[in-house]
């Protein structure tokens, strides 16, 4: 099984989720994160102090899928999450050796 971790623009979430649901992904876990990268943030000014942050708000999606779903998942995310402007984010794939569904104790593919 594979763990797909995707960093996306927050307002793209609904589209990405729909694209994933469409290909049969039934679960994922979402975290609000800050992304540091090429994309530069707005300058914030508070009286005398100016801060130009490079930390942009992003969503981090985590989904474990069966090996054969991985490529389709990646494509779905890349397609739906793309705006074509800097800061669209990344997708990382890592191997997962074991998955458990807490409710039932089911393991691996059964647990997805």
């Amino acid at each position, binding site marked *: 099984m594979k763990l797909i971790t995707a960093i996306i623009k927050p*307002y793209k979430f*609904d589209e990405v989720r729909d694209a994933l649901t469409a290909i049969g992904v039934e679960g994922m876990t979402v975290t609000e994160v800050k992304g540091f990268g090429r994309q530069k943030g*707005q*300058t*914030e*000014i*508070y009286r005398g102090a100016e801060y130009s942050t490079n930390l942009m708000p992003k969503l981090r999606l985590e989904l474990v899928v069966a090996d054969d779903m991985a490529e389709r998942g990646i494509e779905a995310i890349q397609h739906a999450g793309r705006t074509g402007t800097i800061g669209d984010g990344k997708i990382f794939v890592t191997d997962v050796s074991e998955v458990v569904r807490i409710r039932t104790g089911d393991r691996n593919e059964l647990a997805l």
Partner: protein
Amino acid sequence: MQKLLRHFAGAAAGLGTALAAGAAFAQDAAEATPVIDTGDTSWMLISTVLVAMMIVPALGLFYGGLVRTKNMLSVLVQVFAIGCLMMILWVLYGYSLAFTEGNAVYGGLSKAFLAGITPDSVSGTIPELVFVCFQMTFAALTPALIVGAFAERIKFSALLIFSALWFTFSYIPMAHMVWGGGWLQGDGALDFAGGTVVHINAGVAGLVGCLMLGKRIGYGREAMPPHSLTLTMVGAALLWMGWFGFNAGSAAAAGGGAALAMINTFTATAGAALAWLFVEWAVKGKPSLLGIVSGVIAGLVAVTPAAGFAGPVGSIVLGAVASVICFFFCTTIKNRFGYDDSLDVFNIHGVGGIVGSILTGVLVAPSLGGTGIDGFDMGSQLWTQTVATVVGIGWSAIVSLILFFLIDKTIGLRVSTDEEREGLDLSSHGERAYHY
């Protein structure tokens, strides 16, 4: 209204009449050597503060809590800046154009820059400067009410220009017509504290605005829940508190008229709050905080024109009826017609104002616990109320339509798509509301 009220027992004399008379015709009254009543002055000073508090922080919080985090500060800046700008314009020419003698629509410029008004000038039983201040808060609040209708997408510069022009061409004429000796003042329409001048006027401008600007990006598709109902609650509660100054202050004196307006501002509001709560509970399955505070505002709007005329029990009914109608607009009509009145300015201020304005003609009836007016006939009074209401709607609609059109064609009304998505706080104001 002025003539009718003269025959009327005094207890419920609307501010417009009582004070405008004093203010506008101070010369004539001068022979009678008017004296200041410290009790009335004290009440009007604090009423002024209460109404000012309705602008900031109350309206800012009420609206701000309802938008998404990324637009929070934009709403606060808008309300704050409009309030301040109107205060300046009021002193420069607003007061004079609204409250000096002139034609049917505008007064004159004799008191521009408050010329000739000293601390010793008297208006009724209070210093004229207090009357100027009290009315200033109304003038500053009204344009700020409008921003809720097209929150989260308007360009700040466009809004400031719109507000200044709308103040000049819609607020001032309406104030002059209803309170300042103009057109509507003589026709007997009852409007105790500004149902037409303030709420219908602002509500209709909001509707026109949200139609002209179009919907927010993602409206109807993305979730746009209020970012802090806690703040909305605080705003609503403070609006209620401030409204005691708005309504009971409109009696212009600390007496029975203020007392009646105050109790009605309690009972209509409580009735409306509970009505929304229970209707929502029945229809949607759960009674919500946003529901009860929406009812609060609906009740306050509806009782504004009636506060000095209806009885306390009649006001409960008034509040409840207006609340249910506003509920229907917010939950059904808006979705049916698809206009994005973001914070329900028209659906509550406009609709509630219309209901209140018309029902005032019913609830003033002594048989229903109202104070009555000289030669009261419900049929003809209802007609008079309807005429004034329609004039208010029409005037505001036409002026708003023209202004929004002109601004749209020149500097544009909306921020860019990217800016809207980023949120106005960062893109228009360079700040973020929270860094927890």
